[in-house]
């Protein structure tokens, strides 16, 4: 799912400091799971903001809500009757949710409260890590279920490169943490599966126009459209 992390409170304060009626809108989808933007985080942020403004001698209205999702219109519509009461909305959803909210309520200033980071997994409680870059053409079938686009720092389709050492990527020094070499992982996994033949033939060229190189993407399914 989509992983995000809370923005520094100072940054959020700067965006809303001139408003008197503010709605904090959480999202109970992905960002709630990674504990960045669900109801609990809305309540915590709202309380911290109220304390901050009260210290400054200001008493803005800061209301709290958390929608089932912010990436679907039917849930955003729940805000329709409430929107007139607010000067601005702070959304704790991912970038998609913030934008959809801004599209739906185009006359209202909408501000993000989280930094959307990646599509990933809950490695363990409190640890989330990236697994997919939504490249639009999945290659996992030929790479032992390990994504070279995500797990290889260079997104190589035919690795490993010369920077792989003892199973670690050369960027480990740069980012100051151990980063596994994606292609080392792929090799080990394919060896276990008895599929090392894969390395005899290089992968075919990848169509990057279905990834970000093709601009903002869209999926249209006529069979499920109303």
């Amino acid at each position: 799912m989509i992983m995000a992390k809370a923005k520094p409170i100072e940054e959020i304060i700067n965006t809303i400091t001139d408003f008197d009626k503010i709605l904090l809108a959480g999202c109970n989808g992905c960002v709630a799971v990674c504990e960045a933007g669900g109801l609990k985080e809305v309540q915590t942020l709202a309380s911290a903001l109220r304390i901050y403004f009260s210290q400054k001698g200001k008493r803005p209205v800061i209301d709290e809500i958390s929608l089932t999702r912010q990436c679907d219109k039917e849930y955003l519509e729940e805000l329709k009757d409430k929107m007139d009461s607010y000067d601005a909305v702070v959304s704790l959803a991912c970038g998609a949710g913030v934008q959809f909210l801004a599209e739906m309520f185009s006359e209202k200033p909408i501000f993000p409260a989280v930094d959307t980071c990646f599509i990933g997994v809950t490695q363990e409680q409190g640890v989330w890590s990236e697994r997919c870059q939504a490249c639009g053409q999945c290659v996992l079938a030929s790479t032992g279920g390990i994504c070279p686009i995500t797990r290889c720092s260079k997104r190589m389709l035919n690795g490993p490169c010369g920077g792989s050492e003892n199973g670690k990527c050369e960027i480990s020094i740069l980012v100051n943490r151990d980063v596994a070499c994606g292609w080392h992982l792929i090799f080990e996994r394919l060896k276990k599966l008895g599929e090392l033949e894969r390395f005899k033939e290089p992968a075919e060229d990848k169509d990057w126009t279905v990834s970000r190189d093709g601009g903002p993407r869209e999926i249209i399914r006529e069979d499920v459209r109303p």
Partner: protein
Amino acid sequence: MNYPPNVRIVIVPCTGRVAAVHLLKTLEMGADGVFVAGCLEGDCHYQSGNLRAKKRVAYVQQILRSIGVDPERVHMYNLSAGMGPRFAEIVREMTDRVRQLGPMHAAAGVKAEASKH
């Protein structure tokens, strides 16, 4: 056992139940300080409730720092149910600390009950 009367005790089954929002809400609603009194480390009946509370207290202190509030207003203490005199001592210590920091909401003119001392 005597301790300052301006402390309001909220009983929870385990300090692991205490979330960041509870501590912040306490300050928001008018208290000038709040402390979490957990069991001694290693003695949690639920294994790690007090250790989780400790991390949450540290997290709230970080939030307070970022909004310009002295993080010392929130504190974690560990003591057993049999340490009554120590509890009284902690309450006095916390009360003194908070008194030195002054009322939380003076700027906003909020007359909080806890700020009377």
